[in-house]
């Protein structure tokens, strides 16, 4: 197992190197002069232009610039935002908890509902209810989530008036950030109604962000369950007279979960992509909205740093899933694959 982990880490290094090169090239691939782009429409005098080129180091050889950038990464230096002048890393981690909280909630929503729906459909295979569940899953899978968010806002915020339209908590409440997670901070603050407010802000974004993973997980669970339910050991378990509940819940589910866990892991990338749309619709102050804003403000160091950090997060999650997969599926571990 130890060598397996080492091997997986080894595979990650070239990818990480490539990702840094990709992020580094980003600003250099922009058509035109980066300094002129940063200056925007105000324009620059030639002297100031040369000064800025020198200040940002754009006049040095490319490999030297890359080396500087690469070394900077390990010292936690991803450059400074052009708009706020703050370090990119600082900005990223100030906003990250909001995205993290939303993603966790969306994932809990998607896995609990998705796995139950998948199991239900597998048990009721071929019946009307199976078709209904799978039909709904396919609709969810085909959903343009930015539109889905707008629909939910029309219904729950507009017509019914149950949930707020945007933000993480009502402006009425103010308390210091302790963990960065609004649900926890609101409880810690001890203010009455703060938790309810935070929760009601979270519900719609959670549903929107969780919809596609939910559909994918439900479909995957169903097909994995169907495969396992046809196995001999399940028939043996049934023949031994074990209750159907135990057969499905213990014998079948454990083995069916192996491909499902991989699917769940793969959804993290989807989730971070979906966060861009979800956060934009609900004005959720997380990294997805920050990335979109940075792209629109032409704040290239932020985009560059954000791309790199998000890619690293996806890579780390994928690695964790791979290791987890090896842990629950001994076949993989022993072949060393």
């Amino acid at each position, binding site marked *: 197992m130890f060598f397996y982990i080492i091997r997986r880490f080894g595979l990650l290094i*070239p*990818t990480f190197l*490539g*990702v840094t090169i*990709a992020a580094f090239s*980003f600003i250099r*691939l*922009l*058509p035109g002069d980066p300094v002129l782009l940063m200056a925007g429409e105000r324009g620059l005098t030639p002297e100031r232009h040369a000064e800025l080129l020198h200040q940002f180091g754009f006049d040095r050889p490319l490999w030297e610039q890359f080396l500087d950038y690469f070394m900077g990464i390990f010292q936690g230096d991803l450059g400074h935002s052009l708009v706020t002048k703050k370090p990119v890393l600082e900005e990223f981690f100030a906003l990250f908890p909001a995205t993290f909280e939303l993603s966790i909630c969306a994932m809990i929503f998607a896995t609990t509902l998705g796995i139950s729906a998948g199991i239900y459909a597998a048990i009721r295979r071929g019946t009307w209810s199976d078709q209904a569940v799978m*039909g709904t899953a*396919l*609709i969810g*899978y*085909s*959903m*343009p989530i*930015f*539109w*889905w968010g*707008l*629909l939910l*806002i*029309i219904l729950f915020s*507009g017509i019914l008036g149950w949930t707020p339209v945007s933000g993480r908590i009502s402006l009425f409440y103010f308390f210091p950030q302790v963990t960065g997670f609004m649900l926890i901070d609101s409880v810690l603050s001890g203010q009455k109604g703060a938790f309810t407010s935070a929760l009601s802000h979270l519900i719609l974004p959670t549903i929107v962000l969780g919809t596609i993973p939910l559909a994918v997980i439900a479909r995957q669970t169903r097909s994995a369950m*169907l*495969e396992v339910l*046809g196995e001999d050991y399940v028939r043996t378990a049934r023949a031994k007279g074990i209750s159907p509940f135990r057969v499905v819940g213990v014998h079948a589910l454990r083995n069916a979960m192996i491909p499902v866990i991989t699917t769940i892991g793969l959804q993290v*990338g*989807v989730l*971070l*992509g*979906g966060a*861009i*749309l979800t956060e*934009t619709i609900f004005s959720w102050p997380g990294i997805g909205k920050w*990335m*979109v804003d940075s*792209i*629109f403000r032409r704040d290239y160091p932020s*985009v560059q740093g954000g*791309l790199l950090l*998000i*890619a690293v997060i*996806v*890579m780390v999650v994928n690695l964790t899933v791979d290791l987890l997969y090896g842990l629950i599926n001994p076949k993989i571990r022993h072949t060393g694959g």
Partner: protein
Amino acid sequence: MSEQSVASRSTDPSDSLQTDTRKTGRLAMLQEFWRYFSENRGAVLGLWFFVFICLIAIFADFIAPHGETEQFRDALLAPPVWQDGGQWKFLLGTDAVGRDMLSRLIHGARYSLFVGCIVVSLALVVGIAIGLFSGFVGGITDTIIMRAMDIILAFPALLLALALVAILGPSLTNAMIAIAIVQQPHYVRLTRAAVMSERTKDYVTAARVSGVRALRLMFITILPNCLAPLIVQAALSFSTAILDAAALGFLGMGAQPPTPEWGTMLAEAREFILRAWWVVTLPGVAILLTVLAINLMGDGLRDALDPKLRRS
């Protein structure tokens, strides 16, 4: 497939006693495919709806009651015909600057299908070429290519597409290029995996021994036997391409107004979300139904083309 049936016929002694009634050839394969495909009612429904959308897109100029950018200043935000104040002139109402929703939706079908076609063709051709090459050559070249694909896949697709469009400049063409770039690693991986498993088979060795050159070996001998997963992936990425292009349009990084692209229409309609439900709801319904039809078709294709899943 045909090689296998020939082999089984000659080895099975009971077969030689009676006439073999199995048909071979293109037509028979198509018939077999259609038999499996049409078993899936959802897939057939999806196919019909897809054909319907294609027809609408092709004949948009004749079907649409009004021009796609024609403005009626006396009917701003007119509701659909079945609501109070609706006019028969505008079946699905008008938007904030008095353009007929129905006409714009009809013309929008063109853009979405166009995006799907271009993105899939680009990603498919480039992906297959790289995948074949990578799997065929092997060694260090293969490793480098596959690591490069890993790098593209490390970024969330939509985010990478968004950043690429920011580099290239926001427009529908650039959005298509960006989405194609983001999607092609999937084709590369699929093609390469298929080539790896086919490369060592006897028929390839036989072809190689008889002096078939590399290019012919790649494209004529091996590729046709790797097509099934690629076709399924193509259907999948057709719908993803439409969704991503609409998402980019919605974020203002895809087709630019006044293009009646469905995602762009949604972005324009956002501010009327609580006042005029039809300008927000209808473009989304159009996207959802189109993508749903393609996904239904894709499921049917997968079931019909994948023998492993066929009888499960």
